[in-house]
């Protein structure tokens, strides 16, 4: 009996328990609303279905969220990813649109390299601001978030750049082994990041920098270098996500591409159980969080609710998941009996007070 209770408790207190429950509930609600939701069909050698669509559309978010996870693990935050998506997508599309033959693979590869290169430079700029100059991450990246949107519009000259390039389009909507190519790209990125962080000491070092950058430095870790690195990685992830977003619609819109993706990515990371205070991270949780958010968006679309109203549902889910995960909320419900003698223990955590 007690063994079973303990098992139950271990299950419900697992940090990914509630996100999984919400995801399953969402999928179940969809199936009830639309019985054909779970079915996956084979057509023209490709798999089609709502589940596949969710996977394909969540690929950019997963990529951005992966980079964001590492940044948040060091106790920082990267608000500029949305603008970076717009910039890298705009540069790639601009380069392709200037090619005589838009379908040449070489031209597309150069375009990708250009977009990625610029994103890396901007990521390095973020990294320098945070790691070298020592500016608070939320403001340091706010600069590029505001200015980056302007830069993206400057690149596209305020227009929507439309391209007609099959190799580029494949990044967004192409298929490989019956599944969308985007899923494989996101999966590959996740595996590479996981291999580097969980199979080498890098993950541990990132967590230690997030726990206490000063102590890590004194312990012989080059904290500044690690902090710099995570912003560059985040920018690279954002750039690839930007390629996917623009390839999806074969056009680059400096104003709308990647708009609010940084918020979705931060939500995905938080839902996945990574603390905004830094010091620990969970890549699996982040991917789950990204899938949850995309499922929610798709659900709302499928139910014929206006896309903007989906924000209402997002707000409810975010607050619910965060509340359930919050230690303060749990503690309040764990001890129902009012104990007037003991005032709430003041476990002051200075890190938690920093506006993340």
């Amino acid at each position: 009996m007690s063994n079973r209770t303990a098992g139950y408790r271990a299950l419900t207190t697992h940090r990914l328990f509630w996100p999984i429950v919400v995801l399953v509930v969402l999928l179940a609600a969809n199936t009830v609303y639309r019985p054909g939701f779970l079915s996956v069909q084979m057509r023209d050698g490709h798999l089609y279905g709502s589940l596949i669509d969710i996977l394909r559309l969540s690929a950019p978010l997963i990529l951005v969220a992966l980079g964001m996870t590492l940044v948040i693990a060091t106790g920082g935050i990267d608000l500029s990813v949305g603008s970076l998506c717009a910039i890298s997508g705009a540069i790639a599309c601009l380069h392709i649109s200037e090619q005589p033959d838009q379908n040449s693979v070489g031209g597309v590869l150069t375009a990708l390299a250009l977009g990625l290169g610029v994103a890396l430079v901007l990521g390095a700029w973020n990294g320098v601001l945070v790691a070298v100059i020592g500016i608070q991450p939320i403001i340091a990246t706010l600069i590029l978030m505001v200015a980056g949107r302007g830069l993206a519009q400057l690149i596209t000259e305020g227009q929507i750049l439309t391209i007609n390039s099959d190799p580029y389009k494949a990044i967004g909507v192409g298929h490989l082994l019956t599944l969308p190519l985007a899923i494989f790209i996101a999966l590959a990125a996740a595996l590479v990041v996981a291999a580097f962080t969980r199979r080498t000491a890098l993950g541990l070092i990132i967590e230690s920098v997030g726990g206490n950058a000063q102590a890590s430095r004194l312990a012989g870790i080059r904290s500044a270098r690690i902090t710099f690195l995570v912003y560059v990685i985040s920018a690279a992830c954002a750039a690839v996500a930007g390629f996917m977003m623009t390839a999806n619609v074969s056009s680059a819109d400096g104003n709308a591409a990647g708009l609010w993706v940084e918020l979705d990515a931060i939500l995905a990371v938080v839902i996945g159980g990574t603390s905004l205070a830094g010091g620990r991270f969970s890549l699996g949780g982040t991917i789950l969080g990204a899938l949850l958010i995309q499922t929610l968006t798709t659900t709302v679309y499928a139910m014929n609710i206006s896309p903007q109203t989906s924000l209402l549902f997002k707000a409810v889910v975010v607050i619910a998941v965060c509340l359930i995960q919050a230690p303060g909320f749990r503690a309040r419900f764990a001890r129902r009996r009012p104990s007037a003698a003991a005032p709430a223990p003041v476990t002051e955590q200075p890190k938690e007070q920093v506006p993340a």
Partner: protein
Amino acid sequence: MTTLSLLTTRTWSRLPRRHVPVLATLVLLLVLYGVGVSQYRAFSNIQVIFNVFIDNGFLLVVAVGMTFVILTGGIDLSVGSVVAMTAMVSAFLLREGLPAALVLVIALLIGPTLGFLMGCVIHFFDIQPFIVTLAGMFFARGMCTFISGSSIPITDGFWTRMSQERIGNPSGNFVSISVLIAFAVVAVAAYTLAYTRLGRNVYAIGGNPQSALLMGLPVGRTRIAVYTISGLCAAIGGILLSFYTLSGAPLIAVGMELDVIAAVVIGGTVLTGGSGYVFGTVLGVLVLGVIQTLITFDGSLNSWWTKIVIGGLLFAFILLQRLIGIRYK
């Protein structure tokens, strides 16, 4: 005697340092204005300044509310959506035929209520302000489209009168009533921050929450209060915006929170809290307004240059704060 002189030297060396960011903003504003006057003859018209206030009155009010939140070391991302929601709700209720006074009261209650709830969640459940106000932002924006998917015009007599009333001198220069309301909000906020217990608590909590708690200051109450104040300011800003545009649109004021945060930071308030002035925020809003006016006057520059310039200014001011060594975590 020695202690006194020590004390005075310390105050003398400290006071300017706290004032440097605000002074720098003031200098920047004067330089920008000087550039405008030297480049365009029409710029020296006093009405240009009045227009900056008329166009940015609502931004000013919202930025004042944000100053309170940032002074405690928090952040409120929901303001832009709350502004839109307030304008939307007023437009909707007016269309339903409710009297203007009742609509005003209801509209002014929604923002503070949402702010109060967010403050409670932040304080009692110990969730980061960033996440909570982000959810608030989604909620308010969702409510906007929930009310109506398209913009609702306002034809109410009181609203149109407030929108068209011009207060000015015989030579033709004028301000709108919104500007006077914005000034009143600024004055009340400046007084509250400088001379009341609540204001001093805000600075104390921003300086060091733990010390504030150990000193017996009401940390929780103050923290909830600042989010309520920010909600109230956003609601007033929403009303002013509906005076300005005479409509409620679901997608108005998107990204306004960034402009507001930028204005507060350019105004010299440190984002980790504890240092800054309402006056600085006024200057920050003016800087943004003058930049927009300059870009409008130029005509050949496109609107995206505004964003790039604001980004550059943000960088310059943060660097300045860093160089003069205001405490940064």
